[in-house]
């Protein structure tokens, strides 16, 4: 089913028509798949310290991810969604945020969560089936991951409204997937963000797949970024595996939002390297060639080559980093394993600030009291 370009599907203007509105969707890429610069990069890309810190975060996330899958396979973690392949956009937008900003997100955003300060142990706790994993010690105002698709988009709008009402220079960032861009929640949210000119940025992480549904069956639009136009806000598409584009474009959008310029949709084109979750088997619907082709676009290898090409990163640096990340992950796993299980009373003790008297007997029943 080949899509006919939108221009060919549009109602052709007749002699009497004038063009009521016209739109364009830009595309940004600095670093191509071979790690060559295809455009003049922003200043930070010339800074080894910054680029190495982004690389370290992406690597930690990748190593954590592999460990999490292994833990699930051995019955030590619940169902888990791999974030492999999406590290550049995750670290890209998270590093463009300030600590005072707030994030609402879909699952699969461990790279961004880690950058925001969510700990490895908290991630393990959450995916290990313990609500205490969403009691983040650092980004206290970030929302826990939203599993119902796109339901976090309205939350970001509400948070952004709060920032605007209090006249605080803060930004709400909402991360969601390509599937989410089909949902009403998303459209209602970009619409309100547009009309109220809210400080919110929607990062549409287009990883090509909504479980088994490929991007081309999700929507007839050429880009997901152009959906922004329906909300009266700018949309831009980027190479989501290019950390420079990811950090730069998200920074621009967040800065614009912070200074009162309103909302943006950033579509980051990336690829879901793994199964939807550990409960999924992507070989049922996805040809292996697609995955091996996508590995050639790997954001981690791309950034590593960029660093190595500039003599900022050696084989020894790489070996040290991997050892260090493994050590961190193993330490987190050890701590996670030692955690006592939640108490049955916890089912009741966080339902309300004070459990209504009418529910006390049930608490007793379930806690053996």
């Amino acid at each position: 089913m080949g899509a006919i370009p939108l221009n060919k599907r549009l109602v052709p203007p007749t002699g009497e028509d004038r063009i009521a509105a016209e739109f364009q969707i830009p595309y940004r890429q600095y670093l191509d798949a071979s790690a060559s610069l295809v455009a003049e990069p922003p200043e930070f890309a010339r800074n080894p310290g910054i680029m190495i810190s982004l690389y370290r975060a992406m690597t930690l996330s990748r190593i954590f991810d592999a460990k999490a899958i292994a833990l699930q396979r051995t019955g030590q973690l619940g169902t888990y969604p791999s974030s492999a392949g999406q590290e550049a956009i995750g670290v890209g937008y998270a590093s463009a945020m300030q600590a005072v900003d707030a994030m609402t997100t879909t699952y699969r955003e461990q790279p961004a969560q880690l950058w925001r300060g969510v700990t490895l142990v908290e991630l393990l706790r959450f995916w290990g089936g313990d609500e205490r994993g969403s009691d983040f010690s650092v980004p206290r105002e970030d929302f826990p991951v939203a599993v119902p698709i796109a339901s976090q988009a309205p939350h970001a709008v509400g948070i952004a409204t709060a920032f605007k009402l209090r006249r605080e220079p803060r930004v709400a960032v909402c991360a969601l997937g390509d599937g989410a861009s089909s949902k009403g929640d998303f459209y209602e949210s970009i619409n309100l963000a547009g009309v109220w000119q809210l400080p919110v940025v929607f990062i549409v992480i287009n990883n090509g797949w909504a479980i088994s549904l490929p991007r081309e069956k999700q929507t007839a639009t050429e880009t997901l970024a152009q959906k922004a136009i329906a909300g009266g806000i700018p949309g831009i598409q980027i190479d989501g595996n290019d950390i420079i584009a990811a950090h730069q474009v998200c920074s621009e959008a967040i800065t614009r939002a912070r200074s009162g310029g309103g909302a943006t949709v950033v579509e980051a084109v990336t690829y879901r390297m793994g199964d939807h979750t550990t409960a999924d088997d992507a070989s049922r619907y996805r040809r292996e060639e697609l995955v091996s082709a996508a590995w050639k676009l790997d954001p981690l290898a791309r950034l590593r080559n960029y660093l190595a090409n500039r003599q900022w990163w050696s084989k020894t640096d790489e070996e040290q980093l991997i050892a260090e990340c493994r050590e961190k992950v193993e330490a987190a796993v050890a701590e996670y394993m030692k955690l006592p299980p939640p108490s049955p009373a916890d089912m009741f003790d966080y339902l309300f600030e004070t459990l209504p008297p009418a529910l006390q007997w049930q608490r007793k029943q379930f806690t053996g009291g």
Partner: protein
Amino acid sequence: MSEVSMLGAINMAMARALEDDPRVVLLGEDIGVNGGVFRATDGLQDRFGEDRVMDTPLAETVLAGMSVGLAAQGFRPVTEFQFMGFIYPGLDQVINHVGRLRNRTRGRLSCPLVFRAPTGAGIHAPEHHSESTEALFAHIPGIRVVIPSSPSRAYGLLLSAIHDPDPVMFFEPTRLYRASKEEVEDSGEGLPLDVCFTLREGSDVTIVTWGACVKETLSAATQLAGEGISAEVIDLATISPIDFDSILASVEKTGRLVIVHEAPRNCGVGAEIAARVAERGLLFLQAPVERVTAPDAVVPLLRLEKTYMPGEKQIVDAARRVVRYA
């Protein structure tokens, strides 16, 4: 003190909350200049400004979801849905986020909001404007469901709902909006949530009801008194969680229970009350529990709405049956 209708009392409670608590904001469709489709927010935008009383686009999903974001940020959103029949796009938010944000973050974030929606039939409204689906909401953990039945209880319960640190669904019976007026003092004092109100004491039969049906039930009780039947009328007020201890104490006293609700019978809140009496108070009963409810049918358009809604006669008949049983 002034005489106000239930609408006036609701308006007064929101004005009081806006006045007393800078965290309170009102959100909804047509609530600003227009004052809401029922005029519940009449004059409030003029008085408190567009930052406190916000007209939103016509989009109930984002209306519900943005309220969650605002509440998590420390605001106290009071969000109007124009009719209960139009709150359903927000139901995803209510179930998946409103009722569980505190729980799923172990108290790090909370959701102190109020969703207001008019409920019930009897005002000759078009299709979808006459719903009584409170049982849908009563099934959801982590939220309260409150339905007032008089101007003073509307004022007090709404204020408490707004002050409460947790989410409250506040459903307002349209049939009572302008039905009567009473003296309501704008005291800023709330009425307790989680408890029912005994509106009339009696010894022969307990009649539990809520919302608009309170009106017919009180008339029925007066009629029954003329026949020598002493009915105790309990207004449930907080539909979830149910103050069951008070109901049980009343049933222990009267030995008979009639439950009256405008919602359909199947899995209605009446079923829960009856089941709990069966669990904990079966031996108090001198007669089977009776339920007077709407049928398990779609709310009809206005020509049949009177037939659909429980009326005084059915309540009187049910009470007579349980009192004269065996």
